[in-house]
């Protein structure tokens, strides 16, 4: 568990200030405001996790940093100055959904990448490409068309593509997506190696355990706004993980009011989180005794417990529920 952020706030090298973006998907449809005055900071040499539900604005934020989408309002600052094309030469990007053209080969993709990032000398490109492909296990397939590649192979190529020019900042959008368990471990090790090299990383994933083990800071977005930053709370991602509920009781056919009445009647331990999803109420507890204390009263009342147990690898959903509680209180 990474806990290297303690105490004073480090200096930001990439800052997003008051970013706003509204899209109109169709002339007849109402506009959708994706970002609502978003402020974010990223720090030199640290790994920052960006978390949020689908549509929270994570990908829009990343695309704005990369210059793919233009903000309606606000600024993106790189070391205190508005970000430029040249600054973007120091960024490596691994996109979740992007696919390379199927008729090209890994060698051709990486050759173009080195050329557009002006990596010199060009005479060394062939060697560099071969060693990179070797390191991601694609050397044998270097001249094969990408349309014959599996999802895992595509991800490995995407990693090679994002890192071949040795960027100072790596932006990773769902890097674990579609990988098998071994592939995930490999990807995690690659990210850790880059982190050790001093590369700043912006990691955007739905996999909370990966964020918890890799990131120094966490920033949570909801509806285009920053709702939580571990920096503001002076709290490391490890401490945040510890604060999350680990044991859950899911009760069917009840309302939060019913649960509250039950708690008052039996003087039960309070829950840490309560999440209602239709007729299902999920209670989250930090410790096992608190969770088990609810079982007998619920059964006596005739409530149906559809799940009881621990979740050591707390999901992203738990994190978001946790902060929903925090911000609605």
């Amino acid at each position, binding site marked *: 568990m990474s806990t290297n952020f303690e105490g004073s706030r480090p200096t930001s090298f990439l800052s997003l200030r008051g970013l706003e973006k509204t*899209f109109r998907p169709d002339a007849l449809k109402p506009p959708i405001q994706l970002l609502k005055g978003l402020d974010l900071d990223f720090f030199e040499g640290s790994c920052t996790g960006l978390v949020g539900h689908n549509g929270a604005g994570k990908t829009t934020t990343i*695309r704005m940093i*990369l*210059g*793919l*989408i*233009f903000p309606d309002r606000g600024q993106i600052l790189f070391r205190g100055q508005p970000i430029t*094309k*040249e600054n*973007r*030469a120091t*960024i490596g*990007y691994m*996109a979740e*959904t*992007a*696919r*390379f*053209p199927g*008729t*090209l080969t890994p060698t*051709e993709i990486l*050759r*173009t*990448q080195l*050329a*557009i*990032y*002006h990596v010199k000398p*060009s005479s060394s490109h062939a060697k560099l490409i071969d060693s990179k492909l070797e390191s991601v296990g694609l050397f044998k397939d270097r001249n094969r*068309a990408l349309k014959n590649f599996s999802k895992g192979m595509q991800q490995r190529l995407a990693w090679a*593509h994002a890192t071949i020019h040795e960027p100072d900042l790596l932006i990773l959008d769902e890097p674990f997506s579609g990988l098998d368990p071994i592939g995930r471990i490999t990807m995690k090790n690659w990210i850790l190696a880059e982190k050790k090299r001093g590369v700043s990383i912006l990691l955007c994933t739905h996999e909370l355990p990966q964020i918890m083990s890799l990131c120094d800071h966490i920033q949570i977005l909801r509806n285009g706004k920053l709702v939580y930053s571990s920096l503001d709370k002076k709290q490391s991602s490890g401490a945040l993980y510890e604060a999350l509920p680990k044991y859950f009781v899911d009760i069917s056919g009840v309302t939060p009011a019913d649960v509250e009445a039950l708690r008052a009647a039996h003087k039960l331990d309070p829950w840490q989180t309560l999440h209602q999803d239709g007729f299902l109420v999920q209670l989250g507890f930090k410790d096992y005794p608190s969770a088990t204390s609810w079982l007998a009263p619920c059964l006596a009342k005739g409530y149906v417990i559809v799940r009881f147990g621990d979740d050591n690898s707390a999901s992203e959903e738990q994190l978001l529920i946790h902060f929903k509680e925090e911000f609605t209180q």
Partner: protein
Amino acid sequence: MTAWWSLSKEAFLILRRDRVFTPVVTVGIIVALFANIASNWGIDSYDKILFDIGIAGFRMTGGAVAMLWGVRMIADPIKDRSIELRLASPSARFSWLMSRFVGLSFCLILMGLIFAGVWQGLMLLNHFGSMTNLQNWAIGLLVLEWIVLGSLALLLGTLAGLSTALFSAFALWLTGLVAPLVAATMGPNSDPFQKQVVEFIANIWNFQRFNLIDQLEIGSNHVLLNDLYPRLEWAGCVLAGCLTLAAWAFQKKDMT
């Protein structure tokens, strides 16, 4: 290798290996062979039948594929999101767009060279000897027409989705082909306003400028430079206009 050249080469390779390339070249060759057979059916002017069908076949096949590729040069990378990987880099959007155009142009030129080779083969088969200067210019202008259509499609691809852009490009091409013919057939009894409108369109949007088929005949080798210059100038203006507008629109486009 410079960034710009590298991106152009990538665009060229994508098109060269595109599944459309081989069928299109095959169709062009089949049309040329059909023209050769059809020329034998005529009682007279078999060379005219050969040129009319053969060159028109090349023209339509190449024009259609130029528009398809021009639109797809923008629509495909947006659809598979590979555009993000190329634009999230220090290279400018303008460079990326122009490199797509250059890659497309090279591929169209390659196709033109293949068609010219087939045409030369047909000429030799029919004992007409080597291609004349005029015939070279006729094929050269066809390739130029494809490149102009490619730039038009590229512009439309930056403004709209694949099907809308493709439909609009075909409609504009058809207008450019038909308007001069309609204008030529309008007599003194035609409605003056309609006549004025059609003539205006025919003047500014005339794709028959790329057509030298009428002047082609065996033995004719007379290329009038004074006749060629206005055609080349017009092509240059349309190219410059389309690419400037495309670059302007693309510069402001959000890659959502």
